[in-house]
């Protein structure tokens, strides 16, 4: 049978299983098994499953994943977000949009210590939503900017999504981390720019500034930022000074988070163990999906489908821009219904040979993927940041989704910008690893 029709059958099979509520990891495994039936050559499908999954999960670089998850679990239980709000707020009164920018800044900073988008969104929203509402800021803009800025948790390193991608695509984790910084700043600027323009256009919907504070007070308030900044500096110093490799800095991040929790009196044996078990469960959930994906990837390698598809796409003679545009549309569609990790693992086996053949750098493509995953986080009906904000604000899902829409389009704009100016992504990794 022709490989492309086999690919279509397998895709239909996978969609059927997922639609019927089969657990994602199991559905991937089943699809991998079905693929093996087309591979020919009497390959023992079961032994391949056992070997592949063992080889992929007993992995040094993957060990950073549960640690970054754990770090997020610990930080969520601290008062970090409150301190960040108080630290940033006194400095933003001169900007059009005033305190609304706290959402972006606080998410950016919290994103530098957390590896998760939903955790960043929830942690910052917990404090910023009520504070901004109390002061009379436009609630829709507040919701939208929190939904959008929350996704900085996975674009600014560390990032669970990046670890998953790097392991799947077999690229260096540290390079993908480095590549995320400037796009993270870019997205922050786009968000803040939008907030400023919106506020200039709607002057009546921005409340008056907080009463001015003395410089001393302001500085005193900003001292609240110190624990978080210390944690960022601590993690990056451990990297730069050669105390830790990219994988090991996750362990230092956990240690720093525990120290902050302890300092704030939020650390007890009970909360410690709760964070361990919470992280363990999230890790297991992701790992079963990764296991299924690695088996499906191997099965695809046996069939030769990814290469055939890559050649087929190559034969279409799309320009690189057209390919990225097509992939963006595909991911936006997938992202309405799937969460980010599943989206990445479902597609990498097929898409990576394609983008490689089109001449894209796999580090660059990692950032592209993170951006489309961010879109998925804020697109209905399944978007975890929307769920978080829906709950915290008590608004219905339509309102929240509509509020997030401008920020969704800003992410699309960010994809366009990094596609036209790939240097934004590649500059830092190139400086650190020339050639």
């Amino acid at each position, binding site marked *: 049978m*022709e*490989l492309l029709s086999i690919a279509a059958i397998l895709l239909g099979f996978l969609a059927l299983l997922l639609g019927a509520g089969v657990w994602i990891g199991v559905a991937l495994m089943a699809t991998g098994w079905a693929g093996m039936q087309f591979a*020919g*050559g*009497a*390959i*023992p499908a079961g*032994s*391949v499953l056992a*070997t*592949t999954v*063992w*080889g*992929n999960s007993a992995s*040094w*670089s993957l060990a950073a994943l549960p640690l970054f998850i754990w770090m997020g679990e610990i930080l969520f239980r601290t008062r970090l977000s409150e301190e960040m709000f108080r630290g940033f707020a006194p400095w933003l009164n001169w900007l059009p949009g005033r305190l609304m920018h706290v959402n972006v800044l606080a998410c950016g900073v919290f994103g530098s210590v957390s590896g998760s988008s939903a955790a960043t969104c929830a942690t910052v929203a917990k404090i910023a939503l009520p504070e901004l509402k109390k002061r009379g800021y436009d609630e829709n803009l507040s919701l939208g900017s929190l939904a959008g800025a929350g996704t900085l948790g996975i674009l600014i390193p560390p990032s669970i999504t990046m670890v998953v991608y790097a392991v799947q695509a*077999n690229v*260096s984790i*540290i390079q993908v981390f480095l590549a995320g910084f400037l796009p993270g700043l870019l997205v922050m600027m786009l968000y803040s720019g939008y907030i400023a323009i919106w506020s200039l256009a709607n002057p009546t919907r921005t409340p008056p500034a907080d009463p001015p504070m003395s410089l001393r007070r302001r500085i005193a308030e900003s001292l609240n930022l110190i624990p978080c900044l210390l944690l960022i500096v601590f993690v990056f110093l451990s*990297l*730069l*000074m*050669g*105390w830790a*490799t*990219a*994988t090991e800095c996750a362990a230092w991040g956990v240690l720093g988070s525990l120290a902050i929790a302890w300092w704030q009196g939020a650390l007890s044996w009970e909360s410690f163990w709760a964070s361990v078990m919470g992280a363990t469960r999230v890790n297991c959930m992701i790992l079963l999906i990764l296991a299924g994906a690695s088996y499906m990837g*191997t099965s695809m*390698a*046996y069939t*030769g489908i990814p*290469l*055939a598809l890559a*050649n087929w796409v190559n034969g279409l003679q799309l320009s690189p821009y057209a390919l990225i545009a097509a992939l963006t549309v595909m991911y936006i569609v997938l992202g309405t219904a799937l969460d980010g990790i599943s989206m990445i693992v479902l597609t990498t086996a097929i898409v990576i040979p394609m983008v490689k053949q089109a001449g894209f750098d796999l580090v660059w493509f990692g950032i592209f993927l993170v951006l489309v995953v961010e879109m998925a986080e804020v697109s209905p009906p399944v978007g975890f940041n929307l769920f978080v904000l829906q709950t915290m604000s008590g608004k219905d899902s339509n309102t929240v989704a509509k509020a997030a829409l401008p920020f969704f389009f800003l992410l699309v704009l960010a994809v366009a910008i990094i596609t036209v100016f790939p240097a934004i992504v590649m500059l830092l990794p190139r400086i*650190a*690893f*020339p*050639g």
Partner: protein
Amino acid sequence: APALVVPAAAQTKWNLPAAYPADNPHSVNLIAFAKDVGDATGGKLQITVHAAASLFKAPEIKRAVATGQAQAGEVLISLHENEDPMFGIDVIPFLSTSYPAAKKLWLASKPAIEKKLASQGLMLLFAVPWGPQGIYAKKDLATVEDMKGLKWRAYNVGTSRIAELVGAQPVTIQAAELPQALATGVVNAFMTSGSTGYDSKAWETMTHFYDTQAWIPKNVTFVNKAAFDALDKPTQDAILKAAAVAEERGWKLAEEKAKWYLEQLQANKMKVLPPPPALKTGLEKIGEQLTADWLKKAGPDGEAVIAAYKK
């Protein structure tokens, strides 16, 4: 990348997992081998080379072929030295320090390695060497005493024993994280070939390369014996013939390229040096110690191989 052909009825399709990137000389040689086999059998046997660990990761390849998950495979044979000392004979430091010596050692050890592989249902096809291993460092090394305190990458039995014997600090670093570890000074000395140093741009962090030719590791390509036996005689002969050609081609290429890589290191402003006499003597003494270590593990079989090699 290998050509993609939909299998016709009378065709046999083999998979050959390999661990190194598609443009690595070993992978290039494997792809040429696969093509030779395809040509010689008129397309009856199609071997697909899965480079860059895209099918199985390096540690799993041998086992995958032994259990029929793939019909053939290539692996750095010393990876399995814990399993049988014979697999680690080519990484005994300072035992064979040139290509002719390495070839001699290979021929001396080949029957024993063949026997061991056969006991696991594998049939040896051919072996191709890497470059000779030298020491990358950031300072002059006149004697082995100068190696004391170096942060030394220890990734197998031999390299950790060397660290122990010279008083260097063994450091555990995964290969993937080595460039970063070098850049930040986590590691300041390590042993590898000129080619690996060239690929990882060693000159960005290292200043010296001591061409000690400490050992010459090999990749070994093997097939699942049952899969081989299932082929008809002409196809089997075609494989063996292509294997012999691949082995010769591989050794020749490795030897030619080894020199080229050292020239490249030099061109990039690294000091490429022969080990100074005092360092050499010191290292040779360590080599004797490590050969004795190895013989203790390998027993009479090992003694017989070493005796044959030294003859």
